[in-house]
């Protein structure tokens, strides 16, 4: 038994060596292998919206206030607070415009993306204890920008209001500005993550992409490689050798896993160099999880290999399965955002658990105790699929 296991393994390694040799001799294929993760990261990193993606929105400003002149001019105070906040966030690029008509014209031309109009009675209203009103001119075709402008201006007003109230309360009660602030605004929010430091959409997405690349490369690579050899005829060369049929699968899986891990490592390097993603947990655990993910997927790949008669069919089945998996496994979008029926599909996919566990380890620095559920699911899935796959493959190979 031990002897048989040893020959199975050594034959598997021979087949893996052969597959990898073929892979590395294929120059174009190798270039694609390296380019794929780069494109993937680039795409995801720069296309998907993130918190600070709305920068330098071009805005026109029409100030009709100030007819009264003098230091009490409220519009001046507003503009200085706006400038101060803007210098921190760099959100708006403000340029001056003459009047409302010119502003709308510029928006239509696309020179600016929106405008702020301070009406002529702005200061007057405030002085006479009425609300001062600003007009925001928005580009109806771009609701996102108008929302962002509203948010920014609301924040400016909020801060101005707070400062105003703070000053009044401080004067009236004769207390320090800090005490006055606590009186005006007793509640405050402070955000603190499980792990210190700033997290971005990228930290969320990088582990998912890694898991997906490695697992997909095995799931698609295995059927493609075997059906290709079947079509070319070289599979017969291995089939007529007195070796265990399993070593063909095991060997090919080793080769595909190596290929997938190579891409996974590339993604990790790119993510940390270009987007500042770091691994909080153990790097060994990360690789262990990737391998476990591969194990959970191999059975599925083998079953598909056995059913697909040729390479084309194999690829079509793969494509059909790949897309739902990509979008339902919470790689790009959090599962919690999905409606309940989609969530239940998501829970049936092993990639969901692999991506989840990997995210916990990489972003939250989790160890094995925190990811036992995911580990159990992945191992169970792998064992069940392998148990189905082995007899199916053996039968399919000697039809």
């Amino acid at each position: 038994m031990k002897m048989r296991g040893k020959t199975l393994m050594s034959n598997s390694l021979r087949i893996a060596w052969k597959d990898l040799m073929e892979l590395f001799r294929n120059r174009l294929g190798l270039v694609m292998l390296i380019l794929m993760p780069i494109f993937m990261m680039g795409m995801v990193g720069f296309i998907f919206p993130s918190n600070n993606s709305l920068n330098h929105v071009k805005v026109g400003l029409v100030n009709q206030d100030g007819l009264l002149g003098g230091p009490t001019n409220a519009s001046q105070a507003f503009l200085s607070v706006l400038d101060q906040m803007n210098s921190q966030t760099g959100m708006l690029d403000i340029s001056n415009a003459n009047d409302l008509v010119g502003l709308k014209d510029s928006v239509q031309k696309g020179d600016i993306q929106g405008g702020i109009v301070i009406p002529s009675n702005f200061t007057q209203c405030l002085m006479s204890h009425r609300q001062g009103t600003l007009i925001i001119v928005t580009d109806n075709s771009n609701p996102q920008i108008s929302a962002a402008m509203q948010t920014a201006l609301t924040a400016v007003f909020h801060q101005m209001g707070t400062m105003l109230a703070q000053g009044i309360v401080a004067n009236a009660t004769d207390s320090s500005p800090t005490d006055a602030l606590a009186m005006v605004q007793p509640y405050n929010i402070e955000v603190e993550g499980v792990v210190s430091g700033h997290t971005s959409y990228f930290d969320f997405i990088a582990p998912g992409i890694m898991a997906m690349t490695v697992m997909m490369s095995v799931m698609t690579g295995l059927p493609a490689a075997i059906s290709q050899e079947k079509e070319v005829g070289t599979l017969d060369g291995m089939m007529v050798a007195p070796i265990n049929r399993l070593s063909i699968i095991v060997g090919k899986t080793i080769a595909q896993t190596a290929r997938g891990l190579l891409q996974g490592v590339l993604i990790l390097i790119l993510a940390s160099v270009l987007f500042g993603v770091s691994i909080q947990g153990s790097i060994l655990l990360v690789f262990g999880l990737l391998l476990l993910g591969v194990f959970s997927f191999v059975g599925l790949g083998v079953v598909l290999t056995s059913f697909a008669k040729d390479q084309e069919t194999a690829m079509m089945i793969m494509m059909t399965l790949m897309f739902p998996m990509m979008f339902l496994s919470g790689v790009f979008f959090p599962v919690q955002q999905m409606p309940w029926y989609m969530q239940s599909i998501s829970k049936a996919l092993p990639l969901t658990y692999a991506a989840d566990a990997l995210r916990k380890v990489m972003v939250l620095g989790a160890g094995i105790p925190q990811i036992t559920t995911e580990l159990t699911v992945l191992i169970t899935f792998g064992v069940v699929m392998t148990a189905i796959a082995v007899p199916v493959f053996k039968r399919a190979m000697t039809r």
Partner: protein
Amino acid sequence: MFIFYLDILQRFIPDVFALGNESIIVVQNLTKAFGDFVAVDNITFDVKKGEIFGLLGPNGAGKSTVIRILSTLTRPTKGTATVGGFDVVKQDNEVRKLIGIVSEKMIMYNRLTARENLWFFGSLFAMQKEELKRRIDELLELVQLTKWGKAQVGKFSTGMKQKMNIIRALLNMPQVLFLDEPTLGLDPQSTVEIREFIRKLNREQGTTVLITTHMMSEADLLCDNIGIIDHGKIVALDTSTNLKNAIAGANTTILTLEIANLTPDLLATVRALKCVEAVSQENSSHMKIHAHGDGAFDSIIDSIRAKKGNIISMQNIQPTLEDVFLHITGREVRETADQKIPLAEHPRSGHGFGNASRGRRR
């Protein structure tokens, strides 16, 4: 080289003495169906140790399926087959140790070098490293590909690839070699080389060979016994000579003569000869003659020369597979229902037929 032959000799001495009697392949009531399509229909035959056995038939007749079953690549639906006494289903790994297979498709990885390919396939047979290395050297030398050992197989010509394909099948020193259309798509030069290699292998090392072909001339040149297979059934099984006689009908010969000054008068003279059954004029200089009897050649030539006919060339036409089929099955070779359609650039009947002068160039 010398060590190689010693080695082989040691291995095969018992077989050489047993030659001619013992069956190494026994096929009984073998049937293989793919759904409703019966590819192999209840066939029975055996192959003697040390012989070259040919399975002759048109495309889609079931030749390849027989080879695939015997080489353990496909399971039979019904019936049994043994190779070297081992059952191809129950003792498949034992059978695999005894056989080598050259299938119609090249079993070679284009991106690996010749040596890497041989090393890979050889290592699957659990050979010792030293032994395998020596074996690869010998085999490459045998087909004169030693200097190409480190070149990628993808860059080889079709003929070179097929040589590689054959020596790959010989890595484990098989007792039985299965060859599925080994000269298909090769140029005449390579075809001759491959055939000679097969004959040499059989003669010098006593390897039993089971070869499939759709070319009568190939079966005729190589095989001791020929089984003609059609629609999955073996319709005739005999030696080449016996089959040919049966096909040709007694001792009829078919000739084409090229005569520079072919006249109607000359045609009439030949037609009048006793030994001549039929004469037809092919074009301005060629005529085709069906003749019988031992002295047919002499009397035809004499009569032409007596009329001052200027004979440029003369060709003895071999019965083709079409003739074989016409004779045995009473109908033409089916052109439809072929599983394997030949590639346009490799016309299957383009070489090997009839023209004996081509086959004897060297």
